[in-house]
């Protein structure tokens, strides 16, 4: 099994038809760190994130860990339990909010334990009033909270989020921010994309700017304290992934 402590992607490139999306990108994923990939539309942020998630295969490039270089196929195989990817608009299965969250629960729990963990996840994301609602009817902000509740329940080593606050109102942004902060405080490595770096300034440890498929700047952030306006994301975790 691949260790996701300090995983290194080197010289990644990706083309769609004749257009170069990524052109020799080097990126190192550090444990427990929150990294922001920023850049304009079409700069390659989402493609880089999807390569990390194993959803897109790079045309060239290598992936290595402390144990040495690993093949793409091995990386993808190792991914399933370790990395979780959230789309810009998280997909909600045609089922209730509760059932959507239950999908993320790992195997090996009794029915009573399952119910308890799902209840905790609902409470964590302040989704209890929506538990029985059809998830396909949720707003963008609510869907994002369901997606984050699934992430909290699944507890991956690395969480990848594509534009997690796109098209959200201020209240939903604050809620999402609070949940991401909680996930980070639990030691989860987070990589997220945004074209607006200010939105995540207080959350990120590191900022990479992509331009024309290349990393143009790589900077370490100095974090400002940010007290959440929403008392959510405070539920204690009783299960281990």
């Amino acid at each position, binding site marked *: 099994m691949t260790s996701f402590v300090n995983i290194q992607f080197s010289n990644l490139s990706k083309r769609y038809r004749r257009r170069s999306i990524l052109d020799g990108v080097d990126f190192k994923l550090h444990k427990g760190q929150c990294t922001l990939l920023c850049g304009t539309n079409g700069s390659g942020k989402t493609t880089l994130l999807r390569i990390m*998630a194993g*959803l897109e295969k790079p045309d060239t490039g290598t992936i290595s860990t402390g144990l040495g270089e690993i093949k793409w196929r091995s990386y993808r195989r190792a991914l*399933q*339990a370790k*990395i*979780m*990817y*959230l*789309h810009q*608009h*998280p*997909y909600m*299965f*045609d*089922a209730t909010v509760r*059932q959507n969250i*239950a*999908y*993320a629960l*790992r195997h090996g729990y009794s029915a009573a334990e399952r119910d308890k963990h799902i209840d905790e996840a609902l409470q964590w994301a302040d989704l209890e009033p929506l538990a029985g609602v*059809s998830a396909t009817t949720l707003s963008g902000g609510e869907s994002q909270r369901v997606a984050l509740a*699934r992430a909290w329940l*699944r507890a991956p080593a690395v969480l990848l989020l594509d534009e997690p606050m796109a098209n959200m109102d201020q209240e939903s942004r604050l809620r999402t921010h609070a949940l991401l902060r909680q996930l980070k405080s639990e030691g989860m490595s987070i990589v997220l994309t945004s074209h607006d770096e200010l939105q995540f300034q207080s959350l990120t440890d590191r900022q990479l700017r992509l331009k024309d498929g290349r990393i143009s700047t790589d900077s370490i952030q100095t974090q400002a304290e940010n007290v959440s306006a929403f008392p959510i994301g405070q539920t204690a975790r009783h299960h281990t992934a």
Partner: protein
Amino acid sequence: MESLNSATFDAIRLLATGDSELWGIIGISFRVSTTAILISIPPSLLLAFMLANGRFPGRRLLISVFSTLLSLPAVVVGLTLYLVLSRQGPLGDLRLLFTQSAMVLGQIALCVPILVAMGHSAFQAADRRAWETARTLGASPLRALLTVMHEVRFGLFAVLLAAYGRIIAEVGASMMLGGNILNYTRNIPTAIALETSKGEFSQGIALGIVLLLLAFGLNGLLHYFQGKGRFAT
């Protein structure tokens, strides 16, 4: 008009009184067609999914082939399999000709193209994020496939209805491969063809009513589930 009324009345009487010959024919029809579709569903839907989501050499050619086979006449399937299963054919030693197994094979050949071509369209309509979300939430490929199938269930159910409707009503392949043997390989369409050729319209109309009721029932079921909105996850 009077003879049509009288034949229809006789047909209803045959159905209502539980005529053993008539209900035997209906039973054979359902047994053969249900077996054929149950065998066809897993590989066909898997192939349909791969054609909709996979990228491999020959994919476009396969899609074209299965789309073309949608309009394959049942008698051509019957003739081809007849030549394969007849004594001189490559599978003649299996002695399958004029058995229900041969009819099942013929109906599989007819419904697989429908399941693959129309299933491909149904899977193409699915949101790709459904598969990716299922996988990123730790689902195995099989569980993720079942999840996507659940998401497009109404489309797939319509595909199954189309395929089942096609094979339970086809005459050509069943006639050539089954031989229309009473109480063994005579099914609803071959019985209708035979009785009509003899001028015995009552049984033909009775069997026609069964086919119509079947189509009505299955469509009603589809609309019921569509209206209900969801199955249990």
